[in-house]
């Protein structure tokens, strides 16, 4: 135990993270989880039409996003990116507002279905539903920064199911050719809705594909926040040094069904679902921090109380926001309204 503690102690400090920072990362994960859980409740209560969850992905998302520079770097997320977009600047209220499709929702003004985040103020590209399209946008942003000589890194997120899209191949190849400053994060939760990895990925490893694109492919335990941060920090440094892109395959667990319209008991064994909890990134990180004495019962209590209050306040404020006016649906097609 003492050895583990020593190793762990060195670990976050070696990664350049202070005790306060790792505690802040833990809080970010708690908050993302609490927002996620609150939205399921709101969905069950009929307030939210649909939810696509990020539960189980928080470690990978907070860990990798923490290595990015808010307001300077860019993010092209996907529909599970609750924790990633929140780490990059979106608030609990932004996320809940998007799910309620309110008129002043920063993501889309109520135009898109839940889970389609985005925000110009945060450099977060608007999410769509066809999977993998955003990866080309991240590469285009990285290309633009490279053309202009700007110190900007793009990060993009997608699942292992999406990794089979042709656009991913096009994106990664081009990024490899020009050594563009972009980080590809594949959150591999083992399932593309109902189809398991073995029927999705011929070689069973997404990271192994990287070599063909001329970039390193790193596999990390996506439930290990610090491992994810370390991989992303290294990828970020490589990108800034002109050494090109990195593919990070973060092995995560999908703790919920694909979405609120899905029931994973139809295709996953109950024992398999039960076993997922062992890989939940939240208790794992909590244990690490407790071993170091960074997290204690009083701190945990305080954090949970803060997060609960924040989510209560966020949902109260989000629900109070106005619905969009029907006639606003006609606007915003072109910069100047021509047809």
């Amino acid at each position: 135990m003492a050895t583990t503690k020593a190793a762990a102690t060195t670990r976050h400090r070696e990664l350049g993270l202070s005790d306060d920072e790792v505690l802040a990362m833990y809080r970010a994960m708690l908050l993302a989880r609490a927002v996620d859980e609150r939205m399921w409740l709101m969905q069950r209560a009929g307030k939210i039409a649909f939810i696509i969850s990020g539960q189980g992905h928080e470690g990978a998302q907070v860990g990798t996003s923490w290595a990015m520079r808010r307001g300077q770097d860019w993010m092209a997320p996907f529909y599970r990116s609750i924790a990633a977009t929140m780490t990059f600047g979106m608030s609990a209220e932004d996320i809940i507002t998007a799910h309620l499709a309110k008129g002043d929702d920063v993501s889309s003004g109520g135009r898109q279905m839940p889970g389609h985040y985005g925000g110009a103020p945060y450099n977060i590209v608007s999410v769509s539903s066809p999977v993998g399209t955003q990866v080309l946008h991240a590469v285009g942003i990285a290309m633009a920064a490279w053309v202009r000589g700007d110190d900007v890194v793009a990060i993009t997120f997608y699942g292992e199911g999406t990794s089979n899209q042709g656009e991913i191949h096009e994106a990664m190849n081009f990024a490899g050719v020009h050594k563009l400053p972009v980080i590809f994060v594949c959150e591999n939760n083992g399932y593309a809705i109902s189809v398991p990895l073995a029927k999705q990925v011929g070689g069973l490893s997404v990271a192994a594909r990287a070599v063909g694109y001329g970039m390193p492919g790193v596999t990390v335990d996506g439930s290990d926040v610090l491992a994810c941060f370390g991989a992303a920090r290294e990828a970020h440094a490589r990108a800034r040094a002109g050494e090109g892109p990195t593919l990070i395959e973060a092995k995560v667990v999908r703790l919920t069904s694909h979405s609120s319209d899905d029931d994973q008991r139809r295709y996953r064994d109950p024992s398999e679902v039960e076993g997922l909890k062992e890989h939940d990134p939240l208790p794992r990180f909590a244990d690490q921090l407790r071993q170091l004495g960074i997290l204690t019962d009083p701190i945990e209590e305080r954090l949970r109380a803060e997060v609960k209050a924040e989510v209560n306040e966020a949902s109260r404020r989000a629900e109070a926001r106005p619905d969009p006016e029907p006639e606003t649906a006609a606007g915003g097609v072109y910069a100047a309204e021509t047809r």
Partner: protein
Amino acid sequence: MAELNILEAIRQAMDEELERDERVMVLGEDVGKKGGVFGATEGLWAKYGDKRVLDTPLSEGLIAGAAAGAALYGLRPVAEMQFADFVYPAFNQIVSEISRMRYRSNGAFGLPMVIRMPYGGGVHGALYHSQSNESYFTSTVGLKVVAPGTPADAKGLLKAAIRDPDPVMFFEHKKTYRLFKAEVPDGDEVLPIGRASIARAGKDLSIFCYGYMRFCALEAAEVLAREDGLEAEVVDLRTLRPLDVATVLGSVERTGKALVVHEANQFGGYGAEVAAVIAQDGFEHLDGPVTRLAGPEVPAVPFHHALEDWFMINPSKIVDAARALAAY
């Protein structure tokens, strides 16, 4: 005034915009050292370097998607699809992403970008180097679609497209690239997107056309004047989306007869929209059936010259259609 062909005009527009605005960049297959398979970007790579005139792998989805990313970042990319026939791998990006980025972000993210595409037949390009696929894009809300037919229009409209805050599909009929030279105004002449032009004034019937069809319609109008004493008005639409409805209806009001001509097949083609606008809003001025002359209902242009000639719209087919309509 310089005498240029359409290809030279397009190249000059890109050159001047690259020079004027450092946010402008060109990307596509073979656009760099080679200068493009048609030569549209010739000389630009040497002048602006291999970042601003960027050769891409054979990945059309990437060309469109990376251009979208660059536009999000604040650049003004000009992407080239080597042939309009090869745009389909990029269709997902163009339709699902590029056309609706502004709408889906409630106005937060606009995409100032251009996709240039050589289209059309008559150059022995067969099924996969001859397509006129503009109607996929004219029916996509959020895009603007431009199809010039003269060197001056090509230059002025491409400059406007590059400066436009929204995505523009820029269709260049490859048969017109070196077909003729015409005067192009010197200096920074930017033509507004969304305005048709009266290529030839007339009182007996209106011929609505764009791209290479403008050239054919003008030839046909000459024959009609000489042999039939018919004064055909040739309206070059220039921009397909947004359609210049006022100019279209104004012409119908003068002539009472409308012939819509395009090389793409008729069923569900762009001409159907023009015809419907005229039928609905110009009905009281009509003195004959709104008529379409379009490419035949085969999947694409066949190769052998006898087959290709059968396919292509030409001045003589336009003369025949115009005579029938005038006689109504």
